[in-house]
């Protein structure tokens, strides 16, 4: 039983909890453990049925993807050799937690790890050692420090910010008229402006368009949703086929957000986004620029939907407007291509044949 490769993350994560105990029967798909990764907490499910044999990585252990964290045996009493296998692909990537030997209160730790723990305000007793014999070494403390104070996501955010800052970017903003959606949305309270914008984006970025030259998944546009949670900003991915009805978008989005807020994102929720979507309209923000994910060539930021005026043929009329801003990786597309993308979105919202509803 290994830690699967989790979306973007090669780095694995920290085991928050085991949901099964040694000896428990295991069915395919059973949630075995919760793992805190760069981005979020993820439930890791069993790929084979059997019995949970020896757990090699206890709660709190930091494990790499590909690491053996437990053995699933065919019978409940099958022995799993307990020694640490010789280093190689079959070896558990983590050693027993110092907790197990910590009855004396002494944590096996390198002097440098102790210094780093003191500097970072980390209690050594809470650190799982990945060094020889389960010794806590500096990297364990530093990894936990990144996770314990702000969650591993902060490290990820910082890394991504750094990556995007280093890329050439530009921004394109277009004001769009959305008055025709006031009434339908009022009739479908489960559907929000976000769902509408998501559908507009899915329709406006067909595979092969300049900002989406190579589709990453047959399941549709991979939209990263910036989600504010208790743990901070997360970026789960929603797969959006261009023909998905608004109600379905709303349903999937809400389920994803719920998992994100509960810290229970699944493997499929953590893919590489093709577009990052962020809506701060509910906070009264008129216009902002969203950060891209390094994997996404474009981020779309939507502000407040509000009343405004348009002048047409010298006549002023009141209407509902929203400002949509695209942050674009200049290495992928140029300004005209970005402008055409926003033009497509505007055309869908302002002139399209209408939303795809599942009914009526």
């Amino acid at each position, binding site marked *: 039983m290994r830690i699967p490769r989790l979306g973007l993350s090669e780095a694995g994560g920290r085991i928050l909890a085991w949901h099964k105990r040694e000896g428990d029967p295991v069915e395919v798909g059973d949630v075995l453990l919760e793992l805190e990764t760069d981005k979020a907490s993820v439930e890791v499910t069993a790929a084979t049925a059997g019995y949970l044999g020896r757990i090699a990585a206890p709660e709190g252990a930091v494990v790499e993807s590909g690491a053996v964290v437990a053995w699933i045996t065919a019978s409940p009493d099958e022995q799993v050799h307990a020694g640490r296998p010789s*280093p190689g692909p079959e070896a558990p990537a983590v050693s027993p937690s110092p907790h197990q030997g910590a009855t004396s209160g002494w944590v096996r730790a*390198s*002097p*440098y*790890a*102790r*210094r780093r723990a003191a500097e970072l305000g980390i209690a050594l007793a809470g650190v799982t050692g990945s*060094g*020889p014999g389960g010794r806590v*070494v*500096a990297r364990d403390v530093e990894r936990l420090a990144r996770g314990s104070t702000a969650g591993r996501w902060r490290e990820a955010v910082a890394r991504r910010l750094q990556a995007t800052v280093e890329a050439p970017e530009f921004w394109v903003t277009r004001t769009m008229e959305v008055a025709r959606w006031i009434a339908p949305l009022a009739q479908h309270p489960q559907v929000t402006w976000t769902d509408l914008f998501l559908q507009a984006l899915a329709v406006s970025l067909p595979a092969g368009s300049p900002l989406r030259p190579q589709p990453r998944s047959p399941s549709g546009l991979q939209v990263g949703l910036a989600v504010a949670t208790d743990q901070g900003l997360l970026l789960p991915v929603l797969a959006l086929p261009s023909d998905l009805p608004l109600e379905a978008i709303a349903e999937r989005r809400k389920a994803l957000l719920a998992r994100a807020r509960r810290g229970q994102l699944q493997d499929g929720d953590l893919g590489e986004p093709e577009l990052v979507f962020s809506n701060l309209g509910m906070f009264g923000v008129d216009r902002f620029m969203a950060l891209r994910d390094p994997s996404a060539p474009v981020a779309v930021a939507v502000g407040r939907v509000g009343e405004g005026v348009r002048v047409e043929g010298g006549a002023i009329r009141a209407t509902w407007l929203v400002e949509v801003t695209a942050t674009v990786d200049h290495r992928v597309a140029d300004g005209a291509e970005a402008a055409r993308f926003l033009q497509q979105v505007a055309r869908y919202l302002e002139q399209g044949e209408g939303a795809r509803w599942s009914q009526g």
Partner: protein
Amino acid sequence: MADWTYAEALREGLRDAMAEDPRVIVLGEDVAYGGPFGVTRGLKEAFGSERVRNTPISEAAVVGFATGAALAGYRPVVEVMFMDFLTLTLDMLVNQAAKYRYLAQDRLRVPLVVRTQAGVLQSAGAHHSQSFESWLVHVPGISVLAPSTAGDAYQAIRWALRQPDPVVVMEHKALYGRRTVREPAEDVAAGWAPRATRRRAGQDATVVSYSAMVYTALEAAERLAREGVEVEVWDLVGLSDSVMDLGLVAEAVQRTHRVLVVHEAVRTGGFGAEVAARLQELAFDGLDAPIERLGAKASPVPFSPPLEKAYLPSVEDVCQAVRDLMA
């Protein structure tokens, strides 16, 4: 001269010192004929047999003689042909030469230099291959140098012949023919002092060595670099308390957090233990792993080539030790 060998550098060091100072004399078995490694070749022709003295096979008496001459103001350089034979001189070195300055409260000094030659090479066997530096550094009053480059070999001789107290220069038979680029600065003897020198930079681990093992460490570092591990290699040059300063090495440890000490001498009781102890004193809270030591197997030096090869730390041994440190 664009480059020179280790042996040539030693010879030039002796030649320059003898030309500058008539009190410098050279003694040893066959030194007037150049010695078995040719280090003293030509010195008798240049300075005469009174100053370049062939001695009988009486290592103890010769070092004692040199001690007595040094007490009287000469600067004798004794060549002890193999470090294995240094055992025969230890009473003179340890009980006489090393003690005089202290017991006489500086009123008598022993500016004695002993050149000797250690190390495993080409099946020299159990009595012609050993490295005993840890015995010597254990004795206060003796300075011990173990240069690894031609430049340092030259400077070690010049430096040793400026000291007022006994110095043992530990040469290595595998280095005599090693040719290195001659730096112009090496012509200037003044100002040089034995100090730990960084031979290669790296941020992942620090390997501390001296004498011929420096080259094994450097070769290992190149191999490790191909694996993505960058190793810093330090050459101690000076080993005894009087000349060893591990301050810079300790700073390196604070960067790399991992240390391996490599030497040719047997590991148990070897000089690496002293280095390890000092580095943990100086940089304890910078260590992310126990300091590792690599030395020869706990065995007399074997004769047969495959046995001899297995006896010494190899490049791969160094690589594996570093990999273990990184675990």
